[in-house]
């Protein structure tokens, strides 16, 4: 009797052992799968650093692109990127935040609001190159902005608009209702509630969304190629009031330009090995920039969320 019992217990233990083994197998599989991602990231950085670091010097940032790889730099590219980002931020932040405030605080629940909501989630799934086609047809030719910093900035602004809107809405939604009720009880109007309380309190979340949006925009290549940015630019956009005749304040907006991703694309697609090193160096600069922005956003969110106690 006891012998059969212990035999059956042994059988049971065997079954459990087999199943536990599957647990261990799967856990190893999971770790391996994650290693694929992490190792790729590591290999990417290793490749960029070994190829790119020898080319990184002060001159690399202060020289224009050149036909000789060893003398080429990214001056026009990084200046172009910064100016395009400026236009993007100036358009996307106010419009995105305002749109999010409307949807979260003002909008009534009706079909029109539903359309806007579905539309925003749909836009987030549109491939970036389609925004480039929109810009090519609309900004470049219909509005006549040409292949300029303004066209590129507006295109990227539309591209990151859903990111800014979603982040702002989440930030506003996280603010407890009693803050609004308290403000209304003191006689505040709706706009006063929004501008004095909700926007300042939601600032960490809004800022995080804006930074993540801009870090996405600065790395975008496809839409800017589509509007026809040039790949070889050996001059800077005109400074306001400089030159002869003096440039107007807004002349730089309509200047031809290049940006860092396009410079990288151009250097990568040349057969000459020396240009590949330039591409690696420029990639390193770009990736440090975007990941730095992402890290700032994550840190900001973590830091500020910790301090909030409603």
């Amino acid at each position, binding site marked *: 009797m006891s012998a059969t019992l212990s035999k059956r217990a042994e059988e049971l233990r065997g079954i459990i052992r087999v199943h536990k083994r599957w647990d261990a197998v*799967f856990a190893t599989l999971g770790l391996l799968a*994650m290693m694929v991602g992490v190792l790729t990231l590591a290999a990417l950085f290793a490749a960029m650093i070994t190829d790119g670091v020898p080319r990184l010097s002060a001159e690399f940032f202060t020289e224009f692109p050149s036909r000789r790889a060893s003398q080429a730099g990214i001056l026009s590219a990084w200046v172009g990127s910064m100016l395009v980002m400026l236009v993007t931020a100036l358009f996307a932040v106010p419009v995105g935040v*305002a749109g999010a*405030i409307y949807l979260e605080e003002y909008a009534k629940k009706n079909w029109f609001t539903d359309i806007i909501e579905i539309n925003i989630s749909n*836009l987030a799934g549109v491939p970036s190159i389609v925004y480039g086609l929109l810009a090519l047809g609309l900004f470049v030719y219909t509005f006549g902005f040409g292949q300029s910093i303004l066209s590129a900035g507006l295109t990227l602004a539309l591209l990151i608009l859903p990111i800014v809107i979603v982040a702002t809405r989440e930030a506003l939604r996280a603010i407890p209702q009693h803050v609004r009720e308290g403000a209304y009880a003191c006689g505040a109007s709706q706009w006063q509630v929004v501008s004095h309380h909700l926007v300042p309190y939601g600032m960490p979340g809004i800022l995080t969304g804006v930074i993540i949006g801009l870090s996405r925009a600065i790395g975008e290549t496809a839409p800017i190629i589509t509007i026809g940015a040039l790949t070889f630019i050996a001059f800077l956009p005109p400074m306001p009031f400089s030159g002869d005749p003096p440039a107007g304040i807004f002349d730089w907006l309509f200047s031809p330009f290049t940006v860092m991703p396009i410079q990288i694309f151009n250097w990568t697609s040349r057969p000459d090995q020396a240009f590949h090193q330039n591409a690696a160096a420029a990639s390193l600069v770009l990736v440090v920039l975007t990941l730095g922005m992402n890290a700032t956003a994550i840190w900001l969110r973590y830091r500020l969320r910790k301090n909030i106690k409603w």
Partner: protein
Amino acid sequence: MAITSSTAGASLTTPTAKGAAKLAEYARTKAQRKRRERAIEMVLLFAACVSVFTTVGIVYVLVKESLAFFSHVPVWDFLTDTQWTPLFDDAHFGIIVLLAGTVTSSAVALAIAIPLGTIIAIYLSEFAGHKTREIMKPLLELLSGVPTIIFGYFALLFVTPLLQKIYPDLPGFNVLSAGIVMGIMIIPYVSSLSEDAMRAVPMSLREGSYAMGATRFQTAVKVVVPAALSGIAAAYILGISRAVGETMILAVAAGMQPNLTLNPLEPAATITAYIVQVALGDLPHGSIGYQTIFAAGLTLMLLTLFFNLIGYWLRRKYREAY
């Protein structure tokens, strides 16, 4: 009496007049405030509508230029021709050639991203401790933060030479290495969303399964995954629509020659890479070559819209309510 009443009247009328004036002022400021609030609301509404204008703009531009294109090229030829040579004298416009490139590259990418993404999601949600998850999730999300042009550089100059060591006949431009890198880039999209869906499955379901003697793996595969299936499917769909719309990796590493093949070892052009190729040259505005990129863009847009709608429908239909 008369005197008092007159003085009383006087002393009464002044405050009432004052009060009335004050009330009128209140009413005025209130009306003013209401007007201002109304104006602000209109401005905010306009900002919210910018996204709608964007969609309308996209559809308008794509449809307008595509209509011009289809007035030259019959839709039937566009869908059935097996050559894509829009810039040659003997022009053919068979979108199927570009679609083949898109399908091949997406298939390679998804063959990497879906299994790995799912395994990672299950691991992070059901096996990993709190600390591992907190470290690994942001680390993996870095993958989707790297600009795609840099992945293109990586695919062309690192992965392709690596693959050529294993398979020496591989051409310098090929869909395989671009697809692999693209798949790794898409992993976080699949894993993050799937993991969120799995974590939303209530603890009581897992506890029930453990109480029946199931192991972690059994619980994960037989209880958690089926319960989170709609979310996981939506994550796959997002991955697919990313893969279909990805541009720069393919433009850099897969070559830009149109090639009607499903063999990932060959170079091929995708819809997106073709748009880039045309945009890099300078085609005159209004020429047929210029219009082809809008027709290609419309095809791409319809393709991703189709996947997005399926994803939306899946989330709606199979949303489990606990």
